[in-house]
């Protein structure tokens, strides 16, 4: 019998059908499909837009199963485990789930477990687990490291993974995948439900959800909810003026204010925290009606963020200026418009953000995109087209990190001695690790045991030892304690407290904490510099120990924090669409006049490249020679490219002096005309060999990647059994460790982990490789007499030039020269 053709309500047990009817609701088709799949014990991925009753769909099968057996007939065992990327979301979902449970009077106990759960409650949960437990990936790892884990999870029937799209392709996703592989061993019969926003490639998540066989691949079933109403996306664009460069969209603040005025509650999304600060300032400058506009980003003190969230929940705010911190999370019913300042960087991100407005499926979400410069106009148009056409960008599924694997191996050992062969097979069943080589696994185990160094100096201090039966066990109970203190894969940049002190007091004399900011930004400030933080203009006074001290100032023209938090590169997919739009003059008609004219002049004086071409322009300007190219691969990939090209140009004796990269282009300048260079050779893929190696050794970003890997893998401990090591100490020593390790054991497993991480992460080497392949034989060179229109945005950013590795000594010399000049000045 085909269940799907039955009238909806008859599929549900009587109390559930009655509950839906009493509320005047009709179960959604996808909710019923999930019930069906679950009844057959199948794992499913549910792809649904926000507002689709997704969470209830995930729990409905569990509630039905639990309701079908009287509480007394059940052993006290955990039935359903729910994992959310956010602690707050887990708590919110638990609260919402209580409503149907109490209204139907179901005999179901629901609890959460987060970092805030009291020790007594944790203990009770271990011995007498609830029916449904809601938690995070990190807490799951901690539970699995306990010797009680086999008993706690033995009766597990279902796992629900919320916001899976946001977790899967990250280190937290790796950790979760490994946790799931462990659960599979402890409770082989359980089924899984993944809940995801619309994604380009659901197959990747379908594989992630289920254990992978040794050969071939397994996939969870896919259920797609019927899409909501088509969103209304407007693009703010002035016909008179569109800036050439910059990211602040200052010119459009009036439009933004009008959109806020016309909304009940608006979310104003920006891409970086510094943009959030500046936008907040700009809006209040013109907020004549004194509308309640608040600020929310990850650096603000937690109390302040909670205050904003609470005001939002009460409906007391008209707008919140926010970063990706509000991409996910609790639904706020009142939000009826989303305003995206700056380009969206990816179509999927745009869909996610638009979905934050209006949680009813049948009404369209309303969004306003506000491009901050000319290239961003193209990017916004391309993103809107993609969203309306239902096309999304997807990340390439990344391979599981070896650093996360090391942490998991220790986790498993803390629970019980393990057999290496069995654990290897178990880990390979996790999709991100299905290509893991045995040799790499063995090296990771060796790393966990004694550091994995060729010079076997630490065997006597081992963390793991082999038992006579050939099992790996922890050498001492303290190893488990140390693991629990340091577990987790979220590594923040080293941060300093920002403390507000009274004017005229000596620096370091105490003050209220306003929030936390990245150390590298604060260290770049000199006393007297002003910047915007926490919604006000502050004067930097100095750093003492673990805090930066600031005072209030009324300086209206603050130096803006340039910290990078929350910055995303332009997605490959969207980049392609922008290149296509650029190459097709027929599409220019929809662009605002200044942008259309900009492209027409470009076409006249130089050329507009076809989608698969790379345009390289060279021209003199002032006393310098320029080379500008337009790969559209995002700032990170362009910066790496810039480093590599300047090395090559130096070798060709073309004397490059510096370069600047933005999201779309790379500009290099020097003393000699670079137009005669053989561009095919210059841009050849072989630059990714030795030159890259040599540059990586010096790169601060690479060292930061190493630091994160070293912390996650357990080489550097963030916390010791006696008190915490501060971020400042950790960074400094991780650079030293990196230098020593690289010199003496360059093929160490942790350096491998760092390289793999950097290739997809901070440095985007993978992206660069793809680009160099794409443009091979398709480079078009234009030797011009003067700067082209397309080159202007890049040239305007030249003040933010990069400094290459070797040039760091030049800065020291410059500093010394300044000192000498000052000392030698007469009078």
């Amino acid at each position, binding site marked *: 019998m085909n269940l799907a053709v039955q009238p909806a309500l008859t599929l549900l047990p009587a109390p559930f059908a009655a509950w839906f009817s009493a509320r005047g609701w009709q179960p959604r088709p996808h909710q019923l499909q999930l019930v069906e799949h679950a009844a057959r014990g199948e794992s499913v991925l549910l792809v649904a837009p926000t507002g689709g009753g997704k969470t209830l769909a995930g729990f409905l099968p569990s509630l039905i199963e639990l309701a079908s057996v009287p509480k007394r007939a059940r052993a006290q065992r955990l039935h359903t485990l729910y994992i959310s990327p956010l602690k707050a979301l887990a708590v919110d979902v638990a609260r919402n789930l209580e409503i149907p449970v109490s209204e139907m009077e179901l005999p179901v106990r629901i609890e959460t477990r987060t970092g805030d759960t009291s020790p007594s409650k944790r203990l009770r949960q271990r011995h007498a687990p609830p029916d449904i437990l809601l938690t995070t990936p990190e807490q799951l790892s901690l539970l699995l490291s306990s010797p009680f884990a086999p008993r706690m999870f033995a009766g597990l029937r279902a796992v629900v993974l919320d916001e899976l799209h946001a977790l899967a392709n990250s280190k937290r996703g790796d950790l979760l995948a490994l946790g799931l592989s462990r659960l599979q061993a402890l409770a082989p019969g359980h089924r899984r439900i993944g809940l995801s926003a619309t994604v380009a490639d659901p197959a990747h998540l379908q594989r992630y959800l289920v254990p992978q066989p040794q050969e071939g691949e397994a996939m969870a079933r896919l259920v797609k909810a019927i899409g909501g109403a088509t969103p209304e996306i407007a693009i703010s664009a002035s016909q008179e003026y569109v800036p050439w460069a910059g990211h602040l969209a200052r010119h459009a603040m009036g439009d933004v204010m009008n959109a806020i005025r016309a909304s009940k509650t608006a979310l104003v999304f920006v891409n970086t925290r510094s943009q959030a600060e500046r936008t907040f300032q700009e809006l209040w400058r013109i907020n004549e009606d004194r509308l309640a506009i608040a600020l929310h980003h990850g650096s603000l003190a937690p109390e302040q963020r909670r205050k904003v969230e609470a005001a939002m929940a009460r409906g007391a705010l008209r707008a919140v200026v926010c970063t990706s911190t509000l991409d996910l999370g609790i639904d706020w019913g009142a939000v009826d418009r989303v305003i995206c300042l700056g380009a969206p960087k990816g179509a999927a991100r745009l869909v996610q953000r638009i979905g934050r407005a209006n949680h009813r499926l049948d009404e369209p979400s309303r969004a306003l995109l506000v491009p901050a410069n000319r290239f961003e106009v193209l990017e916004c148009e391309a993103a809107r087209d993609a969203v309306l056409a239902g096309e999304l960008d997807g990340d390439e599924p990344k391979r599981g990190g070896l650093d996360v694997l090391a942490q998991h191996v220790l986790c498993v050992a803390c629970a019980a001695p393990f057999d290496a062969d069995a654990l290897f097979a178990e880990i390979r069943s996790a999709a991100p690790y299905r290509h893991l080589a045995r040799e790499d696994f063995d090296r990771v185990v060796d790393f966990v045991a004694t550091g994995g160094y060729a010079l076997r100096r630490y065997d006597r*201090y081992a963390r793991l030892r082999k038992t006579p039966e050939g099992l790996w066990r922890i050498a001492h109970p303290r190893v488990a304690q140390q693991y629990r203190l340091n577990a987790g894969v979220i590594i923040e940049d080293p941060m300093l407290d920002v403390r507000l002190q009274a004017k005229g007091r000596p620096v370091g004399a105490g003050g209220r904490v306003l929030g936390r900011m990245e150390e590298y930004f604060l260290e*770049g400030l000199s006393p007297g510099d002003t910047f915007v933080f926490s919604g006000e203009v502050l004067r930097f006074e100095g750093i003492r120990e673990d805090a930066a001290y600031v005072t209030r100032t009324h300086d209206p023209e603050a130096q803006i924090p340039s910290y990078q938090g929350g910055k995303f590169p332009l997605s490959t997919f969207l980049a392609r669409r922008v290149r296509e739009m650029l190459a097709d003059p027929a599409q220019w008609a929809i662009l605002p006049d200044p942008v259309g004219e900009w492209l027409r002049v470009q076409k006249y004086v130089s050329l507009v490249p076809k989608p698969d071409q790379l345009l390289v322009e060279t021209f003199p300007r002032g006393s310098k020679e320029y080379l500008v190219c337009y790969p559209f691969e995002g700032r990170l990939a362009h910066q790496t490219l810039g480093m590599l090209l300047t090395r090559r140009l130096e070798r060709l004796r073309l004397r490059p002096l510096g370069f600047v990269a933005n999201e779309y282009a790379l500009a290099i300048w020097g003393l000699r005309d670079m137009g005669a260079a053989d561009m095919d050779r210059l841009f050849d893929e072989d630059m990714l060999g030795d030159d890259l190696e040599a540059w990586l050794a010096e790169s601060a970003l690479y060292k930061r990647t190493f630091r994160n890997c070293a912390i996650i893998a357990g080489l550097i401990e963030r916390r010791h059994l006696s008190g915490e090591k501060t971020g400042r100490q950790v960074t400094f020593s991780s650079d030293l460790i990196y230098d020593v390790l690289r010199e003496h054991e360059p093929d160490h497993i942790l350096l491998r982990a760092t390289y793999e991480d950097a290739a997809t992460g901070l440095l985007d080497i993978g992206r660069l490789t793809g680009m160099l392949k794409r443009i091979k034989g398709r480079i078009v060179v234009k030797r011009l007499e003067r700067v082209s229109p397309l080159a202007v945005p890049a040239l305007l950013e030249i003040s933010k030039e990069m400094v290459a590795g070797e040039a760091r000594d030049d800065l020291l010399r410059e500093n010394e020269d300044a000192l000498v000049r000052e000392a030698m000045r007469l009078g």
Partner: protein
Amino acid sequence: MDETGIAVNGETLVLTPAGAAWWPAQRTLVLADIHFEKGSAYARGRQFLPPYDTRSALKRIRTLMAHHAPARVIALGDSFHDPYGPSRLDDFEKDCLAEMGRQAEWIWIKGNHDPAPPSWLSGRAASEISIGALTFRHEPSSASARGEIAGHLHPCATITRRGHSIRRRCFVTDGRRLVLPAFGAYAGGLDVREAAIRSLFGERVRAYLLGARRVYAAAA
């Protein structure tokens, strides 16, 4: 290699980018806070830093000795990270130290981490030593600044230039006393602005930051 000479209590010392001071008049090389076997000290607490820090330091010392051919080497204390450090050296590293002991006279100033260097080490141990106008000790004293050459504090300085900040180990001096940077591969640092360092010096204090090929002066 560019050499930067400074005067301390009338004596000329050359500050090297490797972090050692060279006293040509006495053919004496001075190093501070080598912290041999810091890596293995952490390994005892099951944190497995790469076990190459001792070799890295030895290699750099050997390069310095080959360049300057010193008659005397003074290690300003905390040469070993802990009192058991010497027992954790392997044969290669012990041979290396023995060979260096044959090339120059070594003076091991006692530090707070290594109050008593082992007897088998070539050279002699001392709490402090005075040669000519200079006095060598581990911890800077609060009183006698004149001619004092010390370590212990691991000074570091940060400069900011064109929006980039660079933090490096450094020498600190005001012409009366000199504090050396830590030589050890894993030694952390203390900012020269912190009171523990700043309070030791008078008005005319300078930091010399270690660069790739030379040291660079900066205000401290």
